[in-house]
């Protein structure tokens, strides 16, 4: 009788190499085809937004041209003047034409070799306007979500950590805000502030605050009584330190996921407000505003309406795909 002997010489006794949480998440994200598609789409729009004109190349130079005797120590005035100077000096780079220059003879011209996406209702190059529109939409989406996350996190963290009547009142307030469909509340806010790009940004940020506040509060409540927090308290850590160094990192994953999806929603809301004539005002090349203009000429020149809508859809799709991918990659437990 022959005995087969197990050859263990080739079996490694070493542990697999240590993979950090983020590296592991990134590995999972890369394997997700849909998420990669989302990242590619967003990458394209991001490049469009950044390199639409020479803005980023001019900015370092104009920084030194700001007249500080005019702006004084006011940082907002400083940035405003810097932005205005840079914008004045920037020349189209990726965009083939100036997005606000109208060629009257080419009004509503369909796509051609010189103008691949055609001309809009006053004779501006559609492709250039779409490219510059990426800048407006991404800015509105990202800035409003960052604002909402900052305020929402603060509210949710404090409310959850303190608990008791503070928590009760704050959360009832959030419930009331959530009782409004988001766009309706945004409409109400725009009514108060008046239409415009910046006011729209505020409105969109305000309506999404409760989402983040609730998210963070839930994480804080879940961790508040855990042993490691107790340990931190025992060694004498202060409230602020416990809250922001011990508890908050736990809320990071849901915030990142919700934030990514939230940018998509914010872009859709911004486009909707622009479309209703209550967001960015013409001649700003904002996709929703462009669609609103296209409405009257849609049936004689459909290309004016099709391309901005397509741009909105692709960008939002990109954020949705990436957000879903991030949820699966960062926290496999949340997979639906």
């Amino acid at each position, binding site marked *: 009788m022959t005995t087969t002997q197990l050859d263990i010489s080739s079996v490694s006794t070493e542990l697999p190499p240590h993979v950090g949480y983020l590296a592991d998440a990134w590995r999972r994200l890369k394997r997700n085809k849909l998420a990669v598609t989302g990242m590619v789409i967003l990458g394209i729009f991001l490049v469009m937004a950044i390199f639409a004109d020479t803005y980023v190349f001019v900015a370092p130079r104009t920084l030194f041209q700001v007249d500080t005797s005019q702006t004084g120590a006011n940082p907002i005035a400083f940035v405003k003047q810097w932005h205005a100077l840079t914008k004045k000096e920037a020349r189209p780079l990726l965009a083939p034409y100036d997005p606000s220059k109208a060629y009257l003879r080419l009004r509503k011209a369909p796509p051609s070799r010189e103008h691949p996406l055609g001309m809009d209702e006053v004779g501006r190059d559609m492709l250039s306007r779409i490219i510059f529109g990426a800048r407006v939409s991404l800015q509105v989406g990202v800035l409003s979500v960052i604002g909402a996350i900052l305020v929402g996190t603060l509210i949710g963290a404090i409310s959850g950590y303190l608990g008791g009547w503070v928590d009760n009142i704050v959360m009832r307030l959030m419930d*009331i805000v959530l009782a409004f469909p988001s766009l309706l509340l945004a409409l109400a806010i725009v009514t108060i502030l008046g239409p415009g790009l910046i006011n729209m940004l505020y409105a969109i940020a305000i309506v999404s605050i409760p989402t983040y506040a609730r998210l963070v509060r839930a994480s804080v409540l879940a961790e508040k009584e855990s042993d490691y927090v107790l340990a931190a308290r025992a060694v004498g850590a202060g409230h602020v330190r416990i809250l922001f160094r011990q508890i908050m990192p736990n809320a990071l994953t849901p915030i990142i996921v919700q934030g990514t999806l939230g940018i998509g929603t914010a872009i*859709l809301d911004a486009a909707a407000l622009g*479309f209703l004539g209550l967001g960015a005002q013409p001649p700003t090349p904002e996709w929703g505003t462009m669609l609103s203009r296209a409405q009257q000429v849609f049936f004689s020149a459909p290309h004016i309406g099709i391309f901005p809508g397509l741009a909105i859809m692709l960008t939002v799709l990109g954020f949705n795909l990436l957000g879903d991918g991030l949820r699966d990659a960062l926290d496999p437990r949340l997979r639906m």
Partner: protein
Amino acid sequence: MIRYIARRLLMLIPVLIGISIITFVMIRLIPGDPARIMAGERATEEQVQRVREMWGLDKPLHEQYIIYMKNLARGNLGRSLKRNEAVTQELRWALPTTIELAFAAMFVAILIGIPAGIIAAYKQNSWWDLLVMVGSMVGISMPVFWLGLLLIYVFALKLGWMPPSGRLSVGIKITPITGMYTVDALITGNWRGFVDALKHLIMPAVAVGTIPMAVIARMTRSSLLEVLRQDYIRTARAKGLAERAVIFRHALKNAFLPVVTIIGLQLGTLLVGAILTETIFALPGMGRLIVDRILSRDYPVVQGAVLVFAATFVFINLIVDISYAYLDPRIRYD
């Protein structure tokens, strides 16, 4: 059950008060004299004075709020500047228009979303599955108003199958009772009117219903896949039941509760969709009214419409919550 309903009704009170405060504050936050804002830019000094007295706008803020609530209790939402009639009168026909649209959209969403989700789960990882998953992702990302424009372009202008906008064709009359034209036509036995109203409703309903449809399809799929992994399904399969019977007789029932929940959560999407779609399809509903009057600075109507819109939303949510409690007794003991 009754205790649960009573508790939910009690919880409604602070929310409704909150809504009333937000709409109350809204007009007072607009820069300028509230009396002039409510009386309109072209009002005479005398008219402005009358509005100021009626709403107590020269009194302290908390007294103003009490006056506002008293008027609200009497069903007085103020007067519209554009039409010079009671705000309630303007809302009377706008609200049912929006509700009819929302219901029709939900019907479309369920009718297509649930079967699509079942097929995707049943044939997991097939082309069907991919089609449903990618299609629903695209649907969620699509701007509603853009979809509306495309629908009009293709089905009304190019193919001529559908009327492009409005609620009824010229020459068709419906006696308004509820304000929901399809319902009114059925009540009065007006068959031609019903078909015409329905035809006008289809495209807006598809536009509004697309996002909920996508969400419902995804939820049905994932919920069904979850249930199909359970032991009792393995038992059903093991005793030799056909896959069809396993899904329809055993799995679906348990897979539906999350789907019902998500359907309820889509109400907000529906109402928001209505705001955007009504403008494109020229439907005289709440959404169009609000947008219209923001642009023409008819603030009393905006205020009243936002209030009624939000309150409707809250009440429908309440009904949804109560129906869950009915479907799933565990919820009652939360």
